[in-house]
């Protein structure tokens, strides 16, 4: 009896230990990556982190709340352009451009969300798509401000210095660490959020919106709060993207960007946070590998997406869980 209890306790300790093994190893690899990876791959890894933030932000509303938004590019693009325009015209200081872009994306999400949230399903999807396409048209046509179809170029690198114009984050390693810190903060913050009463409320809404209202939840308010948070974080990803590429383009606001991030979320595993990050990694790696052999990258991505939807509905995380269950972990 006692031996049995001891054994259970020991197992529990191992389980607690092993829960931290994988995250700790991944974190270690992410920290040493800049010292081991060539610049090209480091930039790709930085992009993975940035699009990982973008995909996690969509996961909050798509995976957790059940709001299928097809216009998430709006916030990515708004973050990207706000940063770009401010950097060109006012200051490149990240202490200004980053918060300003978050506010712009958040306020846009408040307006778009307020107008779309009372609809659901296909109507919500079409409304969000329409709003994003309107912003795309603005970026495309408003050449004096946005650079029009050529995109906005000549954006200075972000600065973090105390002296204006000083302390630019130029070396790729520095920018990588800057992005990594923000990524980890967002990841940890979202993990806390989905484990909070608020996060559980969102899942309740996803599972049965009508019953949530019947037991006293103001469902529209929770959905709007989630939508604004997701919009602001989508904007954050756009900010980092402009910092990385010193370029903003209308394509970032195009519906194909909304589609791409949705594919990342679904391939990785909606409603898991880490899944969409893995989805972003898989898509970027595939794109990178396939593009060097053929121009038909979209076709390959389409095929991969179809395979996932058909045989791995819960994405990469679902595959991992199935394997872990089979191995008896």
């Amino acid at each position, binding site marked *: 009896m006692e031996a049995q209890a001891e054994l259970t306790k020991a197992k529990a300790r191992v389980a607690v230990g092993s829960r931290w093994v994988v995250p700790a190893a991944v974190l270690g690899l992410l920290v040493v990556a800049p010292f081991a990876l060539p610049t090209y791959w480091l930039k790709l890894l930085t992009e993975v982190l940035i699009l990982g933030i973008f995909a996690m932000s969509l996961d909050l509303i798509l995976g957790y709340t059940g709001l299928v938004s097809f216009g998430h590019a709006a916030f990515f693009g708004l973050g990207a352009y706000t940063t770009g325009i401010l950097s060109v015209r006012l200051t490149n200081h990240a202490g200004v451009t980053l918060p300003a872009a978050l506010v712009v994306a958040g306020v846009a999400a408040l307006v778009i969300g307020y107008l779309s949230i009372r609809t659901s399903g296909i109507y919500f999807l079409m409304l969000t798509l329409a709003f994003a396409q309107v912003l795309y048209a603005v970026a495309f046509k408003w050449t004096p401000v946005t650079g029009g179809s050529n995109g906005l170029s000549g954006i200075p690198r972000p600065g973090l210095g105390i002296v204006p114009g000083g302390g630019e984050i130029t070396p790729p390693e520095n920018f990588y660490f800057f992005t990594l810190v923000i990524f980890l903060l967002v990841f940890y913050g979202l993990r806390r959020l989905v484990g*909070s009463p*608020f996060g*559980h*409320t969102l899942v*309740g809404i996803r599972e049965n919106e009508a*019953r949530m*209202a*019947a*037991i006293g*939840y103001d469902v529209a308010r929770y959905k709007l709060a989630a939508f604004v948070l997701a919009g602001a974080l989508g904007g954050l990803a756009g900010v980092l993207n402009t910092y990385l590429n010193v370029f903003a383009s209308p394509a970032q606001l195009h519906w194909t960007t909304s589609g791409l991030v949705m594919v990342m979320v679904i391939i990785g595993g909606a409603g898991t946070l880490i899944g969409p990050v893995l989805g972003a990694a898989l898509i970027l790696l595939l794109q990178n590998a396939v593009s060097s052999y053929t121009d038909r990258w979209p076709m390959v991505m389409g095929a991969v997406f179809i395979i996932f939807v058909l045989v791995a509905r819960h994405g990469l995380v679902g595959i991992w869980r199935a394997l872990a269950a089979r191995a008896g972990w």
Partner: protein
Amino acid sequence: MTERVSTNGAAQQPALRVANLKRQFGGLLAVNGVSLSVAPGERRAIIGPNGAGKTTLFNLISGELHPTAGHVYLYGEDITALTNFERARRGLARTFQRNNLFLGLSVRENVRLAVQARRQVAHRLWTRVDSLADVLAEADAVLEALGLGEQAHRLVRNLSYGEQRQVEIAIALATRPRVLLLDEPTAGMSPAETAAMTQLIAGLPRDMTLLIIEHDMDVVFALADRITVLHYGEVLAEGPPQEVSGDPRVAEVYMGLESA
């Protein structure tokens, strides 16, 4: 003497009052001028043939639907213009004729969400759900009281129909309602499950006001203090069970149909 009358007056404030309530669907008057008054702690059965407007009446009371005309009062407060979630926060809960659950979540989480709503902690972004021990304890207490303790960690999807029916009630009870609307609580249950459910409802706190839509007359007679009979959206009869069951009009439209 006057004092006593006035305190009596306060106690006589109905828990739920419905005044001349109407709801029209196109050309159909589903609920046509229903008025009723339910005293605190009373257990009222609403019976009537299919299509009599019973569930529509519940939807109007709980706020799932808004009336074409008329008013709903909860302990004297006019709640007609309030949404269903605002009514729920004022202590008006309901169950549904067809199970309306969080199928992909555990039994405990189904109930915990209801507790969380009443305790108004749902806006917290940074607290861990597991750290709110009082919320969990309250949810577990509801599950224990309904004999669902063993099932707490199972997904609702994987429960038997009868167990799901219990979860349906557990969620409503977890909001600690003053007035609870039960829409056919024994629908689709076996005789044994029906008996258990009847016992469960009978054992609810006596200060909780109950309105029960029920087709099973044994259940009605076991639970109801008074019965309201609806027919074509109107109140046909109302009174204590013995009186209503002896009413020839009721026998004609309802009991007659049942036995035919």
